[in-house]
């Protein structure tokens, strides 16, 4: 019975979303306060309805109600409780409902925390959120209904895909969607501004917290997904340039550009039209990502052909929203007046460079992802564009950006002194090279180019510290004054420094793993040893074990250094009984920031087993850096000036040395 209530709530949600799409915007045109106010109420009601609907589905999964088709297909009574819950979004229908839930959550947040926005802007933005909600609610109801019943109800479910039975998967999609869908708010504000035909620095100030929040969650979501792929798939890689990964990476790149251009707009009223365009493009890339992942066009043309309604429906949403938004942009953008002027060498100039590089590299990723699909659709020819393409194009394009990042915060607005910035970064650059050289000699060989890569990563870290050091005035002023000034810096200054440092740490991890990784693929018999980065790994033997919903063959390995036992590790091949599906569970041991990674292959006739062993030096830096970036995002979000409801302008507490970070 309750499942029907959930279904009913979703239908009601569609009705409310349609009301939300029309009434507030109509009110804004007629200057009717009552109609505009409906927007806030409707947004909250919409969220409540979708949340109820989602809760009902989650409950059905939790109690293993196999009369619901979605539960039967993706759950099993023996699955641990955590995976019963994550199974809700571990499938197409449920994940679309989660998408809608997060979209309406953001609408409700805009309604609740947007009280200080101009009424018309808020009403228009909420209506645009209503359009998107209505489109996706309709999509779910017509093509991907999670509330379908099965009669008679089967006694047992088909189990959740074993690869998805993992803590990483439990948190990865919600984080990713918070990011993806969070950009819808920027999109809605951009459309609202275009409809109003007016845009100013205040607009950027309202949009920036939303951009920052979405970016922070997306960073976390992508890092989480990457780590999950690393330890769950058993292939030892952490990024495959798979179209599904690119689908989440493109909005991240565009969102990063948006974050920086909104800064210029907020502080200097420049780059207004560009910022609006970026806001539209970022969410368009989110929609495109949803299409790529959800239409089935990537995994199998076959699935797309047997159920074309889904793909065509999302494609239609994509075309209507992106096409509509860009047309509106084309008509309205010339009406917006351009803003402040600046010299090429200035903070603005640096941020323009940032935007240029980020958008161009987004475009290369987009081309590499879509070209094989387009070519096949147009000519039927099948090609694959692999990691070498992306490493070459994206990798090279990123180099100037990484080198330029430390300069940005040191340049003044309007007109800056590049030579001065260079002098101030001299110590950081020298230190980076020195540390990189020491690091290189400490490792066991590797390409000399790695020194430059390491130095670039370290330069980002030391450059960010230099910025804080100079702002605090250490070296110029006494230490106690410096400390006081450091404490008085706006939080966004620390946010910027942390985000840039995080980027540097990620670069360090990527370079270290790429350059110093070792890999051995060998057939091992009990007693045999293989070296891995200064450690030696001994195979002790195989053992069978039974888990809650699987059976496994586990291999036991002992890790020694200089003869003493340091750790032991199990690596296994599992067979999930319900689906008769084999998986590889990698054995991973962490030493500081580095890891030993063991993956099992096939058993040989003579009792040996093929084993693949990696030494992954400093690999944790890759995700650790992302965590630091995320921390930077949160610190920046907690800045007073961004907190919603804070006065839009306030007197600066001290002299020009306390100029805000960005």
């Amino acid at each position: 019975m309750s499942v029907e209530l959930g279904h009913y709530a979703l239908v009601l949600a569609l009705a409310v979303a349609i009301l939300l799409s029309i009434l507030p915007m109509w009110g804004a045109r007629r200057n009717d306060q009552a109609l505009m106010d409906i927007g806030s109420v409707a947004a909250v009601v919409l969220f409540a309805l979708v949340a109820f609907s989602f809760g009902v589905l989650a409950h059905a999964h939790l109690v293993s109600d196999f009369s619901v088709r979605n539960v039967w297909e993706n759950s099993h009574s023996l699955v641990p409780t955590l995976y019963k819950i994550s199974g809700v979004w571990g499938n197409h229908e449920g994940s679309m409902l989660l998408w809608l839930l997060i979209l309406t959550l953001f609408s409700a947040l805009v309604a609740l925390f947007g009280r200080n926005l101009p009424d018309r802007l808020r009403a228009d933005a909420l209506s645009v959120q209503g359009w998107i909600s209505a489109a996706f609610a309709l999509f779910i109801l017509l093509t991907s209904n999670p509330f379908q019943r099965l009669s008679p109800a089967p006694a047992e479910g088909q189990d959740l895909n074993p690869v998805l039975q993992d803590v990483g998967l439990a948190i990865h999609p919600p984080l990713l969607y918070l990011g993806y869908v969070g950009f819808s708010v920027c999109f809605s504000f951009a459309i609202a501004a275009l409809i109003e035909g007016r845009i100013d620095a205040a607009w950027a100030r309202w949009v920036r917290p939303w951009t920052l929040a979405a970016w922070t969650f997306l960073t976390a979501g992508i890092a989480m997904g990457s780590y999950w792929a690393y330890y769950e798939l058993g292939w030892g890689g952490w990024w495959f340039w798979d179209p599904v990964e690119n689908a989440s990476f493109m909005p991240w790149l565009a969102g990063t550009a948006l974050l920086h251009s909104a800064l210029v707009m907020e502080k200097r009223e420049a780059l207004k039209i560009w910022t609006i365009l970026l806001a539209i493009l970022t969410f368009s890339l989110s929609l495109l990502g949803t299409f790529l992942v959800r239409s089935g066009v990537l995994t199998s043309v076959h699935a797309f052909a047997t159920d074309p309604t889904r793909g065509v429906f999302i494609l239609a949403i994509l075309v209507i929203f992106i096409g509509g938004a860009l047309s509106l942009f084309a008509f309205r953008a010339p009406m917006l007046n351009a803003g402040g002027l600046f010299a090429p060498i200035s903070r603005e100039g640096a941020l323009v460079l940032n935007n240029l590089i980020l958008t161009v590299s987004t475009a290369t990723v987009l081309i590499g992802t879509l070209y094989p699909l387009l070519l096949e659709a147009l000519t039927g020819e099948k090609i694959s564009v692999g990691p070498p393409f992306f490493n070459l194009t994206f990798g090279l394009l990123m180099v100037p950006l990484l080198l330029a990042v430390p300069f940005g915060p040191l340049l003044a607005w309007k007109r800056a002194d590049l030579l001065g910035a260079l002098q101030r970064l001299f110590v950081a650059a020298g230190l980076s090279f020195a540390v990189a050289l020491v690091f290189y000699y400490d490792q066991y060989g590797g390409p000399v180019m790695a020194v430059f890569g390491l130095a670039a990563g370290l330069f980002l870290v030391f450059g960010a510290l230099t910025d804080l050091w100079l702002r605090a005035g250490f070296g110029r002023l006494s230490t106690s004054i410096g400390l006081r000034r450091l404490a008085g810096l706006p939080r966004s200054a620390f946010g910027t420094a942390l985000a840039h440092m995080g980027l540097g740490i990620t670069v360090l991890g990527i370079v270290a793993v790429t350059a110093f990784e070792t890999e051995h693929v060998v057939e091992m018999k009990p007693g045999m040893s293989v070296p891995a980065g200064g450690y030696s790994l001994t195979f002790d033997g195989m053992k069978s074990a039974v888990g809650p919903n699987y059976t496994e063959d586990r291999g036991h390995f002992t890790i020694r250094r200089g003869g003493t036992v340091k750790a032991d590790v199990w690596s296994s091949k599992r067979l999930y009984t319900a689906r008769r599906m084999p998986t590889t569970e990698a054995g991973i041991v962490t030493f500081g920031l580095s890891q030993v990674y063991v993956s099992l292959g096939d058993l040989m006739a003579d009792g040996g087993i093929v084993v693949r062993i990696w030494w992954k030096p400093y690999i944790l830096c890759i995700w650790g850096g992302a965590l630091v970036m995320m921390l930077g995002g949160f610190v920046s979000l907690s800045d007073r000036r961004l907190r919603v409801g804070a006065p839009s302008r306030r007197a600066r507490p001290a002299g020009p040395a306390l100029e805000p970070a960005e």
Partner: protein
Amino acid sequence: MTRKQKRLAVIAAGMGFIAVAAMLVLYAFSQSIAYFYMPADLANTPVPPETRIRLGGLVGEGSVVRGNGSTVAFSVTDGEGTVKVTYTGLLPDLFREGQGVVTEGKFEPGSDVFQADSVLAKHDENYMPKEVADRLKEKGVWAGQEQTQ
């Protein structure tokens, strides 16, 4: 420089960057795109040695031979042609005789054994790499499994 000239210089620099990026993309495409072939295609239009391609088909029944350590030899067939493949490394969990497979690699000069450096299979027992599924159905070798949904 006047303001106008300055602006033009900045725009030219931006365009230059985009042009460099575009050339990089074209170069990378020419270097790294791998075309997809099936054994029958190779019989009709041989591929020059050292060219990276993707080779797909079914793993030949009874063809898997494990050599020393982690080297494996098997054949890929599509009902019309058969190509011998060698691969060193771990095979995916779902690699089985009679199952669909996509390998990537190249032919060494003067050899008709395909040297694969990657063997792909997805984590789903019903999964057939899509290129393989499409073509095998065209040929009528494999009827395809209906989706359970």
